[in-house]
């Protein structure tokens, strides 16, 4: 990790140097050096993570938690080391509360299915917000339908912020769980989850937080938040795809039935009855994505070395600069202008469809996301088909923002 170092004299992180850790950023797209502004969908991977996974397969691979031989033990050690790193990363009280899942979507499905099925009854309510990703809507809808429970939705204002007075009204004795995203993927809004958690807890209601967008940008401390469930994906924080974390308080997890059945999650099996393993294995049926877990551990180390404070500052600078420059373009409207915002800019060009803008940016080598961002109800709330979304990671720089602004100007000229 030699490059992710701080300049000792100024204690400033050298982000130009860090950018060089990401081999993909050296490639071209449509014959132009790539300007990658879609990290909110998935981040690029540094050499440190790629090497860790390569080394794992070359030197350590065997199935985990099973073999008596040395190699299997070493693989298990590497696997469990990642769990320890994650525990420290989010300051979980115990490693047992950090469950490896495929990603945020599976984390939410696990809780909706296991906790939801056990605790929801006809007439009960699950409380979410208008700005949820489909993956924090559909799993709850499914269990609500099954149980005869209802999904309640906290409205948002024009700036894309939850209306907390409405949240207060919707949080009732019928509410059995609150599930809200920490940061909106489509708007960048940072939600007041401390307030959400405190208010829900005051009524004895547990809270699940979808942390997919927050984990690459903010320091998350699950104990300080006192959150009941917190889930995130590795691939949005420089780790590999297909691996993520569900943190849950042990008392809640222990009381929940298993999600998937299979190997690893059992204690004893007979054809008459199976007893289940303890945490975290109870929720980790089957051979896990071991290389993915090793890669996730490396990503945690990499991110920690740079430091969340420096990352947040750098990204905030890009957000501020990008917002100011884009606003200068005639007919450009930013969708989502929350006071507390992460480095995501969703926008529309007057009279132009997001698909057209995205197509022209693509030709210029600029990767942005267009469409509804898996938040169709949110787009319906704003009465728009979708947006163009540029999202910045710590490996982006001002030059990327300048190229985006130039590209959008060119798109406006061509489409206008």
């Amino acid at each position, binding site marked *: 990790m030699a490059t992710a170092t701080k300049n000792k004299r100024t204690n400033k992180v050298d982000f130009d140097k860090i950018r060089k850790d990401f081999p993909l950023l050296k490639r071209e797209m449509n014959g132009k050096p790539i300007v990658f502004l879609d990290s909110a969908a998935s981040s690029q991977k540094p050499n440190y993570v790629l090497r860790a996974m390569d080394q794992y397969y070359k030197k350590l691979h065997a199935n985990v938690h099973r073999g008596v031989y040395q190699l299997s033990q070493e693989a298990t050690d590497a696997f469990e080391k990642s769990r320890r790193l994650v525990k420290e990363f989010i300051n979980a009280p115990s490693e047992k509360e950090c469950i490896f899942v495929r990603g945020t979507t599976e984390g939410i499905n696990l809780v909706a299915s296991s906790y939801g099925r056990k605790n929801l009854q006809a007439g009960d309510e699950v409380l979410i917000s208008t700005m949820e990703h489909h993956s924090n809507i559909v799993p709850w809808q499914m269990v609500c339908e099954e149980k005869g429970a209802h999904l309640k939705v906290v409205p948002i204002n024009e700036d894309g912020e939850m209306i907390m007075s409405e949240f207060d009204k919707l949080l009732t004795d019928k509410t059995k769980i609150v599930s809200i995203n920490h940061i909106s993927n489509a708007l960048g809004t940072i939600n007041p989850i401390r307030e959400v958690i405190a208010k829900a807890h005051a009524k004895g209601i547990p809270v699940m937080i979808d942390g997919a967008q927050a984990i690459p940008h903010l320091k998350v401390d699950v104990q300080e938040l006192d959150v009941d469930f917190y889930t995130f994906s590795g691939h949005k924080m420089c780790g590999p795809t297909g691996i993520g974390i569900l943190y849950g308080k042990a008392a809640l997890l222990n009381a929940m039935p298993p999600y998937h059945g299979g190997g690893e999650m059992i204690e004893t099996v007979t054809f008459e009855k199976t007893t289940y393993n303890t945490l975290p294995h109870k929720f980790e049926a089957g051979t896990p994505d071991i290389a993915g877990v090793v890669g996730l551990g490396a990503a945690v180390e990499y991110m920690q070395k740079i430091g969340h404070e420096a990352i947040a500052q750098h990204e905030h600078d890009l957000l501020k600069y990008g917002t100011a420059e884009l606003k200068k373009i005639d007919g450009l409207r930013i969708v989502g202008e929350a006071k507390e915002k992460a480095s995501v800019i969703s926008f529309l060009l007057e009279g132009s*469809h997001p698909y057209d803008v995205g197509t022209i940016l693509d030709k210029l080598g600029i990767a942005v996301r267009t469409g509804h961002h898996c938040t169709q109800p949110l787009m319906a709330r704003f009465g728009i088909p979708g947006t163009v979304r540029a999202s910045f990671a710590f490996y982006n720089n001002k030059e990327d923002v300048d190229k985006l602004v130039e590209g959008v100007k060119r798109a406006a000229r061509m489409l206008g």
Partner: protein
Amino acid sequence: MTINEIQDEIIEEFAFFDDWMEKYEYIIDLGKSLPLIDPKYKDEAHLIKGCQSQVWLHAANEEKQVDFTADSDAIITKGIIALLVRVLSGQPAEAVAHSDLYFIDKIGLKEHLSPTRSNGLVSMVKQMKMYGVALA
């Protein structure tokens, strides 16, 4: 002109463009000038949903010949629709059903007809050919 004669004509026209900008400016112009679909056909029954853009398609038949009108909410999609309509509209249903639309690849717009693009165009071409089959 037959379907293939029109396709060859379009390929020839596109050969004059020096770069992607000129090509896309032309497609955008085509999109702007596409004769509008009768508003009564811009309904759920004629809608082809894409994740990125939406397409409305209507087919009318006159003595085994199919006439297409279409629209999209995205202008580049609409420009490509204009080309597809130029190639397939007014052709015998049988020929529409069996058409091989090679011009899209030849003029470098294949990416827009990729299923992963999800702009409604792939489903639209499929739908056009189905009309051909149904009306033949």
